[in-house]
């Protein structure tokens, strides 16, 4: 499938939900949607275009917003990446586990790393931070400062 065919099929399937669509390289499409529509968009992609696999969910702290990208992989084309923007004042996102159940691990990681609240997640326990991790510390937030514990030098400095 060529890029143009995939672009056309995406536009036909999603219509007005697409805020922005780019094709920066072959077999890569980035599209932006509204954050409230993410579950509906992924349902459409799954049912109409056969995208049943989410590679990963990546996140970025841009200062005012969090940018979350759902990387959808597809055998006949390549990668279709769905981007949403979440304002920091209201850091919530709807869960997509009822569309793609395997996404739960990425959503739990989002909660650990960015402190986003994923609404409707079936299991919201921490996934990758350690058991003694202090609450309200989110390593991938830009305003998070890490204080390294003082190092012990066995035998002292020479």
């Amino acid at each position: 499938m060529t890029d143009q065919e995939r672009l056309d099929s995406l536009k036909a399937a999603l219509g007005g939900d697409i805020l922005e669509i780019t094709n920066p390289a072959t077999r890569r499409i980035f599209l932006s949607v509204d954050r409230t529509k993410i579950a509906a968009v992924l349902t459409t992609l799954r049912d109409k275009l056969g995208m049943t696999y989410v590679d990963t969910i990546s996140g970025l702290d841009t200062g005012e917003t969090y940018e979350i990208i759902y990387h959808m992989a597809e055998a006949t084309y390549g990668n279709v990446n769905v981007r949403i923007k979440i304002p920091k004042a209201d850091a919530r996102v709807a869960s997509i586990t009822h569309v793609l159940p395997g996404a739960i691990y990425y959503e739990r990681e989002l909660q650990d790393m960015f402190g986003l609240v994923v609404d409707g997640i079936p299991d919201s326990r921490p996934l990758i931070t350690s058991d003694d991790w202090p609450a309200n510390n989110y390593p991938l937030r830009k305003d998070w400062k890490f204080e390294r514990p003082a190092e012990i030098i066995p035998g002292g400095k020479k």
Partner: protein
Amino acid sequence: MLNRLVRWSRKKSPWILHLNSGACNACDIEVVAALTPRFDVERFGVLLKATPRHADVIVATGPVTRQLKDRIIRIYEQTPEPKFVVAVGACAMSGCVYRGAYNSLGGLDQVIPVTAYVPGCPARPDAILDGVVKLLGTL
């Protein structure tokens, strides 16, 4: 007389425990390679043991992750005296590329006392063997 006998037996049968404290597995593969007949570690009496309660030397690889810190201390405390720790690889020595990461505490000596360090990324099997034998030479 008895002391000499004890020292002789200690030197001639150092049983080791292979401990991964958060390594990427490269050093682990080299530790396992060092235990193959090619290097014939049994000439030094080295045997791999599955439990810290039988071990004399802990051969540890990898930086200390925050999650594993308490478990490493527990394993160290389970090992009977006298016990020795060999830190294998650059990560176990100083934390290497993981040094200063939010989930890593740096080298193994931040958590438990270390007797010998073996550099390398990963350390060669002969270097690991050399480290353990040099440790035995200090007894």
